[in-house]
């Protein structure tokens, strides 16, 4: 992809995503960290659009920026005496070392391997093809995913229900 618009978009979006992800680790306030995480989610959605993955980009915004961030925020609000300083634990340095090693390994593998690149242009319309695939080849994971979501919903409700609701029959 070598037209100027895509290249500029890629560099700007990757810089925004990586810097906000690094800032999530660095800021000292948990709510700021969640907001910066949402910024990095939106950056990843932008990168999906440069890869002409329109349906996945919009789904990413809808679910990650719209719902999972709200979940995290609710967890923070429902735990008022929890610490909000976004501090690191005692595994700071080993984690940093391990993360650095993983990054170096993955980057080396990514740059050094000779991938089999095809020269087709970007996708025109992905939603209908994804829909057909979901009901054609991947129907079993689709149904299992729906059962999984149902179980997760029920589990979350049962876990946080106050116990007195079960006692006054």
């Amino acid at each position, binding site marked *: *992809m*070598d037209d100027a618009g895509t*290249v500029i978009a890629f560099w700007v979006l*990757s810089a925004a995503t*990586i810097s906000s*992800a690094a800032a*999530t*680790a660095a800021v000292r306030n*948990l709510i700021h960290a*969640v907001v910066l*995480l949402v910024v*990095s*989610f939106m950056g*990843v959605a932008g*990168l999906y659009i440069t*890869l*002409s*993955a329109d*349906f*996945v980009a919009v789904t*990413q915004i809808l*679910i*990650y920026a719209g719902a*999972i961030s709200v*979940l*995290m925020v609710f*967890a923070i609000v*429902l*735990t008022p005496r*929890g*610490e909000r300083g976004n*501090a*690191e*634990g*005692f595994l*700071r340095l*080993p984690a940093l070392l391990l993360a*650095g090693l*993983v*990054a170096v390994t*993955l*980057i080396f593998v*990514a*740059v050094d391997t000779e991938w089999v*690149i*095809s020269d087709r242009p970007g*996708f025109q319309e*992905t939603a209908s093809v*994804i829909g057909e695939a979901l009901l054609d*080849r*991947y129907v079993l*994971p689709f149904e299992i*995913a729906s059962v*999984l*979501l149902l179980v*997760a919903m029920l*589990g*979350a409700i049962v*876990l*946080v229900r106050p116990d007195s609701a079960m006692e006054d029959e």
Partner: protein
Amino acid sequence: MSVGLEHYLVVGAVLFAVGLYLALAKRNFVGVLMGIELMFNAVNLTFVSFSRFAESPNPLDGHVFVIFVITVSAAEAATALALAVLLYRVKDTISVDEIDMLRW
């Protein structure tokens, strides 16, 4: 100057490393969850960039994978945060360093 598969894979690798650091080093439960979500995002980005660039008979299978990963991560985030709230009720803390006994 053109942008190819390697560029996206490098971005995905860096995001994955940052997510790994967050998941291992943060003391707060929500911080660990943020790291896990970042790792999921990095993996999704890698899937989508392979689906765009690599040779394949069904190129859009990468997108289908990403839809499933997003679904599963939403379910997992909901369950993890429900557990966090429940744990807070019992132990009055959400610091992962203090939850270190199998039964109390």
